[in-house]
């Protein structure tokens, strides 16, 4: 295990956030619930040295047992931060109890294949030690013989390398983490694609009747989670589930990193504490005239802000679930009055259709048809036909892919025509409420699609 098995945890001072000590750009709201962490620039940042990290968070706890840890994580109700939001303790338990002759494997996914997301890269660049702590603790509890960190960003890669060197030099004995480079592409971060890539295969999703928890990397029970989830594990196992929940009930009451982009004055990564209202988030991000928010990233769902009371609800997953929303991959895309959310969604759909791995027929053939239908609706060229085609093609695609890609696209499309039914009606008569040009605010830089750009 890590350093000594001493249980005397140095009492950390200041706010115990994931983003504690990252740069000096913190400017929390008066309530402190929406903390600006960083803008979206990719300039190199100062990595928190190990000594500073230990001073801020304390040493790693020793003497943990699996049963104790499962109880703590269950009480904390930590859910995965990669998109699916699965309870972490269940994942840990599934891997720990998997019947296998092979030793478990731990994988931290930092590939951040969600194009608009920057939070994982920032976390790895600013405090790789927190993520390494989490991996180390989980690997130790599972008796894992190998651990991997899957990462795309070059600077994040070197920050983690430097941090691992520092830990070795400081005499920390722990399972060595192997860094595997994640290639570009939306599907490269899918669970089975990650496992396949680490096994030196292509970073493409793979169909399997087994869950990776029982048979993942080279058939071994595999615990794969997002890097932010591991950072939370490292915090919860230090400070406890009560600290994590901050007295809150129901759902996941911890803080979370969110990338907030689109029609906002201050796009960037924020650390959000539950209890903050959406109105508070929009105020802090300086959204001048928000009309709608895409929750969760490209596989997300829309919230139409013209509906009553929407800006008031608290930003925690229980409240979001009541609106059938989730934080998903940790991205909020804000749309203002300049662009049309239906056009935005059509542009994203076209981008995602192009990101299909092309392995499964229904996804390969169906997504371009769905994308064309969305373009017809968005650009008012033939709304009737577009809606008709969506109704006929979606059932041929849904649940028929080897991974979540096609179903994620369908979720976005359904949410779009559902949330903006009035807008779609307007498009039928060739009108649109957007006041500006038909360009997209929510496409990744450099993406070229025709639906959003060519109108």
């Amino acid at each position: 295990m890590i350093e000594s098995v001493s249980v005397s945890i140095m009492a950390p001072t200041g706010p115990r956030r994931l983003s504690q000590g990252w740069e000096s750009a913190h400017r929390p709201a008066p309530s402190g619930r929406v903390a600006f962490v960083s803008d979206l620039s990719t300039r190199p940042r100062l990595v928190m040295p190990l000594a500073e990290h230990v001073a801020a968070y304390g040493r790693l706890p020793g003497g943990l047992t699996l049963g104790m840890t499962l109880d703590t994580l269950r009480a904390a109700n930590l859910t995965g931060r990669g998109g699916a939001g699965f309870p972490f303790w269940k994942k840990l338990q599934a891997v720990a109890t998997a019947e296998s002759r092979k030793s478990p494997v731990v994988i931290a996914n930092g590939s951040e294949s969600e194009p608009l997301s920057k939070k994982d890269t920032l976390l790895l660049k600013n405090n790789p030690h927190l993520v390494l702590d989490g991996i180390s603790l989980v690997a130790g509890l599972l008796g894992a013989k190998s651990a991997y960190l899957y990462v795309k960003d070059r600077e994040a890669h070197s920050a983690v390398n430097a941090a691992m060197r520092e830990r070795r030099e400081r005499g920390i004995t722990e399972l060595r983490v192997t860094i595997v480079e994640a290639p570009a592409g939306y599907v490269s971060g899918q669970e089975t694609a990650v496992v396949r890539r680490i096994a030196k295969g292509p970073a493409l999703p793979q169909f399997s009747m087994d869950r990776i928890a029982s048979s993942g990397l080279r058939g071994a029970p595999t615990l794969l989670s997002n890097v932010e989830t591991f950072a939370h594990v490292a915090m919860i196992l230090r400070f406890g589930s009560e600290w994590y929940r901050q007295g809150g009930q129901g759902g996941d009451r911890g803080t979370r990193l969110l990338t907030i982009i689109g029609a906002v004055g201050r796009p960037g990564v924020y650390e959000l504490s539950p209890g903050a209202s959406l109105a508070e988030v929009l105020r802090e991000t300086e959204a001048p005239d928000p009309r709608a928010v895409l929750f969760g990233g490209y596989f997300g769902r829309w919230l139409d802000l013209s509906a009553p009371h929407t800006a008031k609800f608290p930003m925690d997953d229980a409240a979001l679930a009541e609106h059938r929303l989730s934080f998903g991959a940790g991205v909020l895309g804000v749309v203002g009055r300049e662009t049309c959310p239906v056009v935005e969604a059509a542009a994203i759909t076209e981008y995602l259709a192009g990101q299909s791995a092309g392995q499964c027929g229904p996804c390969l053939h169906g997504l371009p048809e769905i994308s064309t239908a969305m373009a017809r609706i968005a650009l008012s060229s033939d709304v009737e036909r577009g809606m008709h085609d969506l109704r006929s093609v979606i059932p041929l695609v849904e649940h028929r892919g080897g991974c979540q890609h096609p179903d994620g696209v369908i979720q976005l499309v359904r949410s779009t025509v559902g949330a903006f039914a009035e807008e779609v009606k307007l498009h039928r008569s060739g009108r649109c409420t957007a006041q500006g040009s038909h360009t997209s605010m929510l496409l990744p830089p450099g993406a070229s699609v025709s639906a959003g750009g060519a109108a």
Partner: protein
Amino acid sequence: MRLVIDPTRCHGHGTCAELLDEYIRLDKWHYPIIAKQKVSVSHADLLRRAAQLCPELAISVVDD
């Protein structure tokens, strides 16, 4: 027993639908849709043979 198709392997040859028209129909792109997943025991051999004849070996007959 049930019929499972690996969609990442299937290339839409359609052999399965010809052999197993009771179980599989093809969509408009000629990819199989399982119409009946539960396999009756009397058809088990036929389904296993069909699985072997799939050019991409994308079909499995799984014992539950």
